[in-house]
């Protein structure tokens, strides 16, 4: 139990000390005023940052980049440890509970399993990287492969951290892909790290085309997880199963990349539009490697 504010300060001057109480009271008020003043300044600074928006390269974005750079070794190390632990967990601890008689054989088997798991992992990495290479060749654009080493610091946004930054040509606004389709776009980069806003975040959007009916629409993340097709009028021809590809009009994603498939179409309870849910082509929870395009595509209108 702690003493209330006035008693806590006054206690240092001894009980019954009138001068002490008055003096400590004045000091306490002065201290509180200072705290409130600096607090107001900090709040104003936050509002200023929030309302002006910080751009890459701005002076005010420097602390953020330094922080990202400071976190790089820690994040990379954590990622390595977590992946290794995950592999050990899956390859070894699954075997817990084996028969006592077969302990020695099981132990050998576990070692072989570990080895095999590692080989399988290397093979899977190889496969994914080959596929990413294929994507890069097919697009005919400059790109770098990057490992996913972290996620969002809160549950309210959908972002990932990748181990490629400005040193590899990664900067804000570039498209990020996987062998399955569109992943998102870069929203910030330091020297060795970049943050990617996933397509399933409600602040991310891409201009898409329905491959069957050729209707243009905007794909964006929903707050409650998942991806939706926005601003589709009730009269438009969209059906579950339709594949959505990037239109190339937004200047971020090249034309023709798979975004997802329409999974549900229903009219909104009020309003002019349809409520269209999309099953994304990419499984955002299982991303390990991604491809970051290091050049921006020509807008398809310019292209034509």
């Amino acid at each position: 139990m702690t003493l209330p504010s006035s008693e806590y300060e006054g206690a240092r001057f001894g009980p019954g000390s009138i001068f002490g109480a008055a003096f400590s009271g004045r000091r306490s008020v002065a201290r509180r005023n200072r705290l409130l003043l600096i607090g107001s300044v900090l709040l104003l600074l936050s509002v200023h940052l929030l309302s002006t928006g910080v751009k890459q390269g701005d002076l005010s974005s420097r602390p953020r980049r330094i922080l990202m750079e400071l976190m790089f070794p820690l994040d990379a190390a954590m990622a390595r440890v977590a992946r290794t632990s995950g592999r050990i967990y899956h390859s070894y601890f699954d075997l817990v509970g084996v028969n006592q008689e077969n302990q020695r054989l099981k132990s050998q088997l576990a070692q072989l399993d570990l080895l095999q798991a590692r080989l399988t992992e290397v093979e899977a990495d190889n496969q994914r990287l080959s596929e990413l290479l294929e994507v890069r060749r097919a697009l005919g654009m400059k790109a770098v492969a990057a490992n996913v080493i972290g996620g969002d610091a809160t549950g309210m946004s959908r972002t990932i951290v990748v181990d490629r930054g400005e040193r590899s040509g990664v900067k804000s606004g570039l498209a990020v892909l996987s062998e399955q389709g569109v992943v998102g776009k870069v929203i910030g980069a330091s020297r060795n790290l970049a943050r990617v806003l996933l397509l399933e975040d409600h602040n991310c959007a891409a201009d898409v085309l329905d491959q069957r009916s050729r209707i243009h629409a905007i794909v964006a993340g929903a707050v409650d997880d998942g991806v939706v097709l926005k601003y589709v009028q009730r009269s438009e021809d969209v059906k579950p199963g339709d594949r959505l590809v990037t239109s190339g009009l937004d200047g971020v994603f090249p034309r023709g990349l798979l975004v997802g498939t329409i999974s549900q179409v229903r009219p909104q309870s009020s309003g002019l539009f349809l409520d269209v849910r999309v099953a994304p082509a990419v499984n955002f929870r299982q991303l390990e490697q991604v491809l970051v395009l290091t050049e921006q595509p020509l807008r398809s209108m310019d292209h034509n």
Partner: protein
Amino acid sequence: MRIAVLFSLAAFTALAVQTSVMHLIGVIALVPDLLLVLAVNLGLRHHNLVAAILAFALGYATDAFSGTRIGLNALLVTIVFFVCYETSRHLWVNNDVVGSVAVFLAVVFRDFGTLLLTGAGQDLQVHAGRIFAQIFAQALLTACLTPMVFALLRKGGKLLGLPATSQRE
């Protein structure tokens, strides 16, 4: 100064846990907001200028690794700090239970604030049930971890020679 060292170390560890470990382990989809726990601890137990600046820095650090808008978490976390500071001045009891309740409310406030300030109000109306459930689950998880974080801060403070009692006005 020692409080700055303690909370900087704690913030780096918390950031690493929030950005890497929770995502790579992938056991649950929720991410406990440990940086907010640190801000609440500052508000409840450390009433000085350094604490206010540290709370702002914690919000800024969250902004560097979450969301798209710099300043959003800095603003919300600074508000949380001041609400905790004001509240704790009128409290007789300042234990871990109070801390857990404060953290629960802080996470709910921060998450709703984030949604409203990022213009997700319309989605909030449409998918209210699922969003509320996610926010409350996250708040509950963070609140459950609060006593552990507070205990670690106490131990860290002891190692650095900080006073054992809370430095309230």
